[in-house]
């Protein structure tokens, strides 16, 4: 059993490790026979060549970071109050509205891309990072609101009442009791907002048209389609590594929250 697991682990890990290791190989060694996993010489020339791709990799990396941070900020700022509102208040039409929010999860954004394109044009947000952030936020919301509602639901009423009786103000209540207890939920929301906005491909491909607005996944396509039909495989390895390493690091750091979110979102 252990042997089977080790063989499978190699299959799952190898492509990632191989690409990462290859990104530091000098060009001469990359094509050498037989295939070597680790390089004899450590070289950053692949990363350096990535600066000549379009606007340069750091522009694309910056765009990706800005989009991820923007999506995280909007999603948290909108979903946390919404989760609180759905959890701790009763108002007319609440169930209906909640069902409507959840329905967003059932209908994929791929099926409304064409009108989204027109709406962004109308808002003068086409070919802008902000436009993309707004779209990513919208499709991040149902899961995030669901997550935050559950997080606030899990806080017992008695705890809130006890704090009240002890004379806590609303602000103290939120800051000292509600937020700390809802924080794992927020971590889950942040993690999913990051991964989904960082990795999103189709909307970024459609809505961004200027070289200097592209994100990392779009840069990869540009590299892999090659200049004059010739693909710079070394630079591609470097680009792939830049794109995937942040996801892996984030996942390893927040693994617990990821699995929690996965099961909560799924079991719904």
């Amino acid at each position, binding site marked *: 059993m252990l042997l089977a697991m080790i063989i499978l682990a190699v299959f799952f890990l190898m492509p990632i490790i191989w690409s990462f290791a290859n990104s530091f190989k000098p060009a001469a060694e990359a094509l050498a026979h037989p295939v070597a996993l680790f390089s004899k010489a450590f070289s950053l020339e692949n990363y350096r060549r990535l600066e000549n791709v379009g606007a340069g990799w750091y522009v694309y990396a910056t765009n990706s970071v800005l989009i991820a941070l923007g999506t995280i900020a909007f999603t948290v700022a909108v979903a946390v*109050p919404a989760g609180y509102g759905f959890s701790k208040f009763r108002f007319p039409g609440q169930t209906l509205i909640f069902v409507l*929010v959840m329905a967003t999860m059932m209908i994929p954004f791929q099926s409304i891309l064409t*009108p989204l394109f027109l709406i962004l044009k109308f808002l003068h947000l086409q070919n802008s990072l902000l436009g993309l952030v707004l779209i990513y936020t919208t499709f991040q919301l149902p899961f995030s609101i669901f997550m935050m509602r559950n997080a606030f639901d899990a806080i017992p009423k008695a705890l*809130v009442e006890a704090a009240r009786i002890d004379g806590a103000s609303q602000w103290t209540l939120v800051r000292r009791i509600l937020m700390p207890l809802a924080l794992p939920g927020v971590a889950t929301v942040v993690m999913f907002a990051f991964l989904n906005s960082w*990795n999103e491909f*189709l909307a970024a*491909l459609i809505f961004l048209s200027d070289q200097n607005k592209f994100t990392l996944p779009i840069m990869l396509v540009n590299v892999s389609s090659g200049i004059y039909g010739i693909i710079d495989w070394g630079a591609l390895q470097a680009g792939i590594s830049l794109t995937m390493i942040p*996801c892996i690091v984030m996942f390893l750091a927040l693994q617990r929250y990821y699995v929690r979110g996965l099961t909560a979102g799924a*079991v719904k």
Partner: protein
Amino acid sequence: MFLKRALQKRRQAGSDEPHGWLGLAFIAPSMVFIIGLFIIPLVMTVWMSFFRWPLLGRRKFIGLENYAELLGDSQLWQSFGFTLLYTVLVTTAIMAVALPLALLVDRPLRSVGFFRTVFFMPVVIGFGAASTLWLWLLNPDSGVFARLLTGLGLVDQAPRPLESFWPALAVIILMVVWKTAGFTMVILLTGLQSIPNDVIEAARIDGASPFSRFRRITLPLMRNSVLLALILNVTSSMLAFDQFFIITQGGPNNSTISAVFTIYLASFSSYRLGYGSALSFALLVVLVAISSIQLSFMRQRPEDGR
């Protein structure tokens, strides 16, 4: 001053009470997003599908003409058919890998956590990066697979899988299984772990073999998580785009153009926004139909069947 303070106090006291128009204020921002960038576009999709709607120039109401064209569009039928074929094959392959994986990592060993993490790792990489990564792995000149095969003397010529249909499809399926099996594994693992231990223990004492324990007890009890994994995989496969755009680029001979790829080409390559909307709506109907059939299976409890 006094009144203001009194009102403030009341608001503070009342905000957690079950009468809350304030609650509406808390959810209002989310409504702005969902109405503006989800509900309105959704309605627009249907509306636009009745128009000839170029990016530039005048749009014209043409009734059901887009739908009539859609029915006779052989490229569309081919791409929808291909998407269904891909969905069936890839979902089967993912389940066939993920179920053994889940059983493998469902044991109280210390090292099991490490393996779960490793099997799950490719899930967090985006489809864009994963597709370009496999494009390199499979490249006949610089890719690892080709050089390993020729290096070991297994083949004389490096294989060029992307040049014909079935090898290209097989390659895509292999990549997607690698990328997403860990996700399905976690869903199935949740199902496995919700089965009470004493049920299986009781069967063991009654002398049931491991295989019949799995078939008669484990599998029926994890039915809902199997169905859930199926729904999620079917839905995402029906929407596949990135891997075909990046790895096969729709080829060879347009044989691997998926449904979303067709919508992309109609709306954003030919700029026929009305026709693109009709295609989107058709895909949406198919998706909702498939999901609701699967959901209705899920609603039936396993006990009802017997």
